[in-house]
């Protein structure tokens, strides 16, 4: 285990221009995230926590500053390269699950693998492993509408895992779940950090969810507070 | 900004789509009007005073079968007949025309024919010249204009039915009849070219009065019953209609096409409105939240829908109207079409269709707006 942070953020700013007004979503954030950390980003709405998450995950670009993930400055990548990078290095879990309604659980989990060159047999192995890990191997052929919220989110986690990324980001993953399912999901995320050595970054405003993390970071009006 | 300004602004949001949809509506309605015009042209024979007095007598076997020339004597003796002339359709190809010639050439007896085409206006000396020269002809003004011909020019024809050629000199140019396209020449010339077969294609007869015309028709039919060449005499109008009835289903065909056109139109307008309203869902929800009532929102939608279809109607139907009233179609179509006219009735029909479509296209969007709550509307991402 090295001391190198897996994510190194330096003077990151995100500014929106709306007509004549400037909206500062993130103001010169500097932050390091260690490998296998379960980091929780907390803050009131509008604090910029989601924006920060998006930038780390390569879904949004900063106005200024740098983000190095595993040594790579992702702010320098173009659209195409970023897409590729996301596919291999980041796993997403959304509040609204975001499963493709017309695809089965199996097919949903398989989606990220379709962008790789892996042969069918290899893909099958990875998908099955991921679904077993979240305990849904018996629901492979089910469509999202045939599953409960908790089950859908677990399939989403399996999808996030299937390319074996080092980074898992979750944006309010329990926002649409009942407390039992929420606990299940948070438990799995914790397991991913502790047992599988994945770096998990969770955005939430719920202190109970935040308790599952190994470190908390607070944001307010685009700035880190503590 | 007034409410109507608001509606207008919205309508012009997506200029490209607006242009596309208005153009398709306009094009479809233009086509609809054109179909009506074509239908009218084809099914309404020319109705002038002269034609109700004139009768065509053909061989009962078919129009393609000739009649013996000696029937003339019998015809002359039938009461109620003021004039009779042989009338043979030559069907020639004018030298220079490629596949077909759009004006007809008829072989007639000139002296007798003058009594039949009383509405034709020709200078007297031209008529005399025609009567005097067996190889001459008179030509309708329209055809003369089309080919740039004048008195004294020569015209050559190849026979497509009769195995002979014609070389005619234009003795006169007439106008004033309902169909100023045709050419008439001496039947004797045709007879000589064919070796005097002693036949005619048909007889052209003029009755004394309109009232007597049907009686005359009857008498002619009876006169030749059980002869070696039975005839079918019918009024000029019936004769032309008979041609049309051969295209038995033209009304159905045109009706079918019109339905198809209207259907395509429907798809365009409904889809366009659907797309337009979908874009503005959020906005409409906000209006609702502000306090606009449903019926006011409906009014917005209807206004836009009607605006679209009416604009299309003005451009399409109105355009057709302007076109036909400012251009001489008969000249432009080289004499193929005679009474191409856009009547107010047709324009009215087009506008009614447009209005109906404007209404129908607004229905679905109105329904959606009515059903969606403000909250749902605000949630829309667009």
């Amino acid at each position: 285990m090295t001391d190198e942070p897996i994510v190194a953020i330096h003077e990151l700013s995100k500014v929106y221009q709306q007509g004549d007004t400037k909206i500062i979503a993130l103001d010169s954030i500097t932050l390091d995230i260690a490998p296998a950390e379960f980091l929780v980003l907390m803050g009131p709405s509008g604090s910029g926590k989601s924006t920060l998450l998006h930038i780390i995950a390569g879904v949004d670009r900063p106005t200024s500053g740098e983000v190095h993930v595993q040594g790579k400055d992702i702010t320098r990548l173009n659209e195409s390269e970023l897409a590729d990078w996301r596919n291999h290095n980041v796993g997403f879990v959304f509040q609204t699950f975001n499963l493709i309604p017309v695809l089965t659980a199996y097919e949903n989990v398989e989606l990220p693998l379709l962008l790789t060159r892996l042969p069918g047999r290899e893909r099958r192995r990875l998908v099955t492993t991921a679904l077993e890990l979240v305990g849904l191997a018996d629901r492979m052929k089910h469509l999202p509408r045939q599953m409960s919220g908790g089950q859908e989110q677990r399939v989403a986690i399996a999808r996030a895992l299937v390319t074996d990324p080092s980074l898992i980001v979750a944006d309010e993953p329990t926002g649409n779940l009942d407390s039992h399912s929420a606990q299940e999901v948070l438990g799995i995320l914790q397991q991913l950090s502790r047992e599988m050595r994945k770096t998990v970054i969770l955005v939430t405003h719920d202190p109970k969810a935040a308790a599952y993390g190994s470190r908390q970071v607070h944001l307010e009006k685009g700035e880190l507070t503590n | 900004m007034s409410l109507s300004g608001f509606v207008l602004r919205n309508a012009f949001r997506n200029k490209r789509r607006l242009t596309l949809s208005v153009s398709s509506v306009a094009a479809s309605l233009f086509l609809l009007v054109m179909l009506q015009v074509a239908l009218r042209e084809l099914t309404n024979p020319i109705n002038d005073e002269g034609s109700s007095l004139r009768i065509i007598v053909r061989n009962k076997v078919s129009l393609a079968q000739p009649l013996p020339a000696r029937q003339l004597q019998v015809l002359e003796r039938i009461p109620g007949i003021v004039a009779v002339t042989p009338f043979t359709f030559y069907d020639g190809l004018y030298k220079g025309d490629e596949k077909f010639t759009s004006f007809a050439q008829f072989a007639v007896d000139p002296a007798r024919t003058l009594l039949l085409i009383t509405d034709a206006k020709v200078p007297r000396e031209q008529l005399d010249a025609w009567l005097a020269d067996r190889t001459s002809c008179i030509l309708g003004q329209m055809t003369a204009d089309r080919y740039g011909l004048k008195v004294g020019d020569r015209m050559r024809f190849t026979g497509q039915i009769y195995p002979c050629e014609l070389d005619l000199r234009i003795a006169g140019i007439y106008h004033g009849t309902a169909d100023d396209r045709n050419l008439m020449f001496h039947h004797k010339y045709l007879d000589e070219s064919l070796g005097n077969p002693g036949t005619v294609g048909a007889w052209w007869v003029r009755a004394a009065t309109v009232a007597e015309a049907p009686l005359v028709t009857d008498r002619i039919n009876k006169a030749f019953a059980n002869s070696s060449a039975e005839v079918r005499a019918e009024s000029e109008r019936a004769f032309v209609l008979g041609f049309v009835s051969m295209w038995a289903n033209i009304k159905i065909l045109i009706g079918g096409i019109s339905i198809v056109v209207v259907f395509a139109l429907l798809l365009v307008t409904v889809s366009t409105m659907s797309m337009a309203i979908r874009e503005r869902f959020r906005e409409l929800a906000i209006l609702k939240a502000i306090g606009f009532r449903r019926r006011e929102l409906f009014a917005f939608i209807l206004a836009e829908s009607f605006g679209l279809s009416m604009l299309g109607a003005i451009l399409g139907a109105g355009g057709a109207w302007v076109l036909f009233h400012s251009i001489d179609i008969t000249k432009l179509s080289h004499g193929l079409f005679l009474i191409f006219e856009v009547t107010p009735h047709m324009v009215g029909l087009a506008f009614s269709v447009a209005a109906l479509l404007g209404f129908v296209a607004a229905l679905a969007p109105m329904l959606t707006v009515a059903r969606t709550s403000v909250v749902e509307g605000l949630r829309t991402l667009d």
Partner: protein
Amino acid sequence: MALPIRYSLRNAIVRWRSTIATVLGIALVVFVFVLLQSLAAGIEKSSGNTGDPRNILVVRKGATAESASLISRQNFQQIQYFEGIARTPTGEPVISADVLVLVTLPRRDHSGEANVLLRGVTPRGRELRPQVRLVAGRWFTPGKREVVVSAKLARRFAHFDLGDSFKSGTATLTVVGSLDGGGSAFDSECWLDADECRSIFERDMYSSFLIRPADEAAATKLVERIENDRRFKLKAEKEVEYYRKQTMTAAPFKWLGSFLAVMMSIGAVFAAMNTMYAAVGARTREIGTLRVLGFRRRSVVFAFLLEGAFLAFLGGCLGCVIAYHWNGYTTATVGLETFSETVFEFRVTARLVIEGLLFAVVVGLVGTLLPAIRAARLPVITALKSI
């Protein structure tokens, strides 16, 4: 690297209710197109004649059709002993002279009258056209006022049943048999004895000659000789060639079919556009998710294009199926060349079906293009909005 095909297909099917208007719209477009083109194909076929490829048909130069052609008996005397014409074992030249007459007869359904083509043939004329077969009754006896009518025409005209008689001109003709022209122009004709025909209708002249040349080389020489002789103004060509050129009647229907299809497809394109815009609107989060997972813009575009094309294809299939219902349906119209009633069958050929389906797919693609581009341009973040 692309989204699986089943993603597009399933999406198309799953939203079937909202896509029904588009599918039906495209189905109708394809239906109209295929129907009119099959009508044209049918007319073309029945104006044609897959006759004996050796035969040479002679008509008057400039005549638009056989029925309008007039050739003198003198010409017949002159031509019949030309070198190059095949001979029977008894030394007779294999040449026939036909007389074509147009007669107006009442329709069976009392809807008025129409022109029927009568062909006066000699026995040699029948021999030269083996594709015309007797299907009922017997052939006419030379010297008698008997006629063999086309079975297909018989359905449309009064007094055309076996044993019936009808009057035309001074004569009464008795129907003694029905013929089948094998789907050629002869299906719209009635045959009788050539001499009887001439005498009834007072025809001095013939309409056409049909010649069997001795061989191919003789054929070419004959054609040249006949056409170049200044005494006659005649046109000679291969019989199959002459019939192949008779396409005038079908032409307006072909044009109409294409024109209507284009007109209607404008509406169909709009409908497709509408449907696909709705799809994109409903799936913005889904599209964003796919982008987050790493799928490129062009994969998204392609997936939507495929969806639109598939929908259109379904519509096309429906349209073809409905149009096929008319396949083989027999009806008639006035042939523009012969000016007589021409029977024909709607012919929905495989080629037409393919054309119809392709057309549908093109319409679908054109309509889907803009919405697909819109989908691709959606910012990735739309996946992440929580509302």
